[in-house]
């Protein structure tokens, strides 16, 4: 029972369609209407901070959970109507790679293949092929509990791609790995992307940049951005937040200084962030502008007699990116 039988349809056919997904856990809304498409051959990055709804989306895609409302189709099959068919098409690596620690790698993969109904003769071939693809040849006889996290991740990937699935769903495939392992697993995913449609989730923007063709960003159960990385970065480039730490000149209040910063040409927003006590007491301002205004801010401070103790671009951490994008979406 292989999945390669269904013919590859048009160039970039929609393989996964997610429509208005809502998931309500008791009183908590995990997903508040998520929609996106994934096309054949794409590596799609599902990005979002912890608790944004990435895993919930994936659990619904893989038929582990059912959405409160909305629909998921995988290769034309509705996940709720025909879950078994969807499971045949998918390979899934859940978050933190749960595996039977007491089993030997080879036996475990054979077990997964047998559960997928491969006949005996083909089963050994498929297992050997999966082991070769993830580079586990030297570890087939090891008990899974003896493997390092990186190699356990490979076993997890091997079970996901054992049946050569059309779609791979990987939930945070590199979390918890050391930097070398991360690079290895990323390379592996890129390699797999040549022959599979992949959705991978991550809270690491750099990772998504390296691996994915397209990004869907989820924040608080909603899609806040959906596009290629270029498009996304274009939107982010329009905002240049900087952080300014000032020992204010005598007679200038924090609010006055913030107002003055706000009035500088190009500044869209300036506010007092907090007061820093060490090493020298000073006030931190956050300034948002359409351009990098550090030179102008320094010149202004010198003119006003403020001592500049700190002046830097605010690094765009993920939370900052989400904030920016969410504000965009609201504007």
């Amino acid at each position, binding site marked *: 029972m292989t999945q390669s039988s269904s013919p590859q349809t048009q160039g970039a056919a929609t393989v996964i369609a997610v429509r208005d997904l809502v998931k309500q*856990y*008791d009183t908590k809304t995990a997903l508040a209407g998520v929609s996106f498409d994934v096309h054949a051959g794409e590596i799609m990055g599902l990005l979002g901070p912890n608790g944004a709804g990435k895993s919930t989306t994936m*659990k619904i895609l*893989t*038929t*582990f*959970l*059912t959405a409160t409302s909305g629909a998921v189709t995988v290769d034309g099959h509705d996940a709720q109507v025909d879950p*078994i*068919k969807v*499971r*045949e098409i*998918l390979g*899934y690596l*859940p978050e*933190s790679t*749960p*595996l*039977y*620690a*007491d089993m030997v790698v080879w036996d475990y993969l054979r*077990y*997964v293949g*047998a*559960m*997928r*109904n491969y006949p005996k003769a083909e089963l050994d071939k498929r297992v050997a092929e999966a082991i070769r693809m993830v580079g586990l040849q030297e570890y087939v006889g090891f008990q899974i509990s003896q493997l390092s996290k990186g190699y356990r991740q490979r076993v997890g990937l091997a*079970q996901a791609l054992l049946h050569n699935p059309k779609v791979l769903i990987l939930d945070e495939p590199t979390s918890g790995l050391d930097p070398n392992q991360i690079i290895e697993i990323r390379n592996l995913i890129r390699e797999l992307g040549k022959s599979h449609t992949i959705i991978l989730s991550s809270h690491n923007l750099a990772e998504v940049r390296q691996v994915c063709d397209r990004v869907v960003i989820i924040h608080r159960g909603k899609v806040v951005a959906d596009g290629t990385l270029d498009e996304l970065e274009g939107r982010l480039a329009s905002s240049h937040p900087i952080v300014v730490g000032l020992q204010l000149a005598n007679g200038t209040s924090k609010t006055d200084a913030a107002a003055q910063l706000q009035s500088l040409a190009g500044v869209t927003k300036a506010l007092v962030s907090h007061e820093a006590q060490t090493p020298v007491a000073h006030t931190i301002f956050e300034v948002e502008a359409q351009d990098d205004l550090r030179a102008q801010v320094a010149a202004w401070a010198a003119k006003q007699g403020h001592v500049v103790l700190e002046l830097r671009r605010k690094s765009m951490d993920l939370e900052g990116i989400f904030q920016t994008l969410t504000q965009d979406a609201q504007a």
Partner: protein
Amino acid sequence: MNAVLTLARREMAATFDSPIAYIAGSVFLVVTGLLFFFGYDGSADFFAAREATLRPLFEYAPWTLAIILPAVTMRLVAEEKKSGTLELLVTLPVSDLQIVLGKLLGAFGFLAVTLAVTAIFPLMIASVGNPDLGAVIGGYVGLLLIGTAFLALGLLTSTWTHNQIVAFIIGLLLCVFFWTATDALLKLAFDRPPVALELLSFRTQFDAFAKGVIDIRNVVYFLSVSAVAVVASTYSLQSRHWK
């Protein structure tokens, strides 16, 4: 069907990989051995009795099964819930019912192996006397059936929690309740318990087997209890969808 057998094989291997199986199996063999050689009150002991019978063994073995089998089934689903492997298992192209059946069948493998080892007792009797083969077969069929019902109840409690100890304790209470407490409670509540209620007791239903009689009604009863527990376990697995 293939998936059920594959899963059953894995479950059986995992059971015999853990010390629990050997502890549970040993307890069963020791207790049934004592019952066999000395009877339950020491009077009808094997060496003195003129009768070549296994009745004391068959009458009291369900007690032991009610205690050890929940220890064997406690890990079946609870362990997978705790480690997260359940998510991979239920997203394989198999139905939740197949998963429940596979797990039950794997545990049944343990029961069958354990009971097979006790075959040494009838063989000993056969070497010195002339046991009623029909009674021996009836007793074993009864133990397999009541054991399956205990396993199914234990499996059900294992689907309720990710804590194996909790699964064991609730499973134990449930099995002991069906084996003996229904009986005791009915006697407390009624001078003459209604027959319909009496029939709910595992003990009432097992009686005939211990005497070596295979009554189809008793067979159907234990199979029905197991089936109800299997269906309930399947629903319990599916409850993740509407939580």
